[in-house]
């Protein structure tokens, strides 16, 4: 299974709408980095509105892809983390402190714009 990555001007938009298995998550990591490379995108929004569970493995894959993208020069924002998911992540002991987040897609794009301009 491949997660579609959409290009919008200098941004890439991803909305994860499938139940993430390990392979899909790792494939997505690779696909996103390749897409950043091919398009020269400056910013990425990964929307998690439809994701109802993030375990430690998926959290690690997401945290890693944010850092990997940063190495390449692209800023990633995670958006739409559900209340139940936020509670579960903190229970698990995962704070994703260094990962930029925003409430929704709109605020995520605003955040990227601010960071890329400033």
């Amino acid at each position: 299974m491949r997660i579609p990555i959409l290009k919008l001007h200098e941004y890439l938009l991803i909305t994860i709408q499938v139940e993430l298995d390990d392979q899909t998550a790792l494939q997505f990591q690779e696909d996103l980095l390749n897409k950043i490379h091919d398009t020269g995108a400056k910013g990425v929004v990964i929307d998690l509105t439809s994701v109802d569970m993030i375990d430690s493995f998926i959290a690690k894959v997401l945290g890693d892809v944010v850092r990997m993208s940063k190495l390449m020069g692209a800023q990633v924002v995670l958006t739409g983390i559900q209340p139940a998911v936020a509670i579960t992540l903190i229970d698990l002991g995962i704070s994703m402190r260094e990962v930029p987040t925003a409430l929704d897609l709109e605020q995520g794009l605003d955040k990227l714009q601010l960071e890329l301009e400033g």
Partner: protein
Amino acid sequence: MDIQSCVEVCNEWDIVSARQLGRNMAKELGFGNVDQARITTAISELARNIYLYAGSGKICLEPVEQMGRKGLRIIAVDNGPGIRDIRKVMEDGYTTSGGLGAGLPGVKRLMDEFTIDSTIDSGTEILATKWLR
């Protein structure tokens, strides 16, 4: 609905099946959104541990009732190498697989009751229960 449902865990896709079963049972038993996420996440962590460290095993789920309380119990069993130092694996951040080391201590926090029983060279059994509030 007193019957145990089990999922054999031998590959990465079985992890997804196990947590889908957990989500459905938690929903049927009347758990709220947040507890459903807690239960599903706990199952995912336990199933991944089986896959990573034991190779294969199973996750069983059963509705439980005790002193008028209803709940859901996760039973994670494998015949793997066992855990040498249980105290160590219950420490936050301890990992031998390059993960976040959040698994077992995380599961303990996500659930209400947690017991672990492990014998070297014969396997591990973990029981974790969440009660309906």
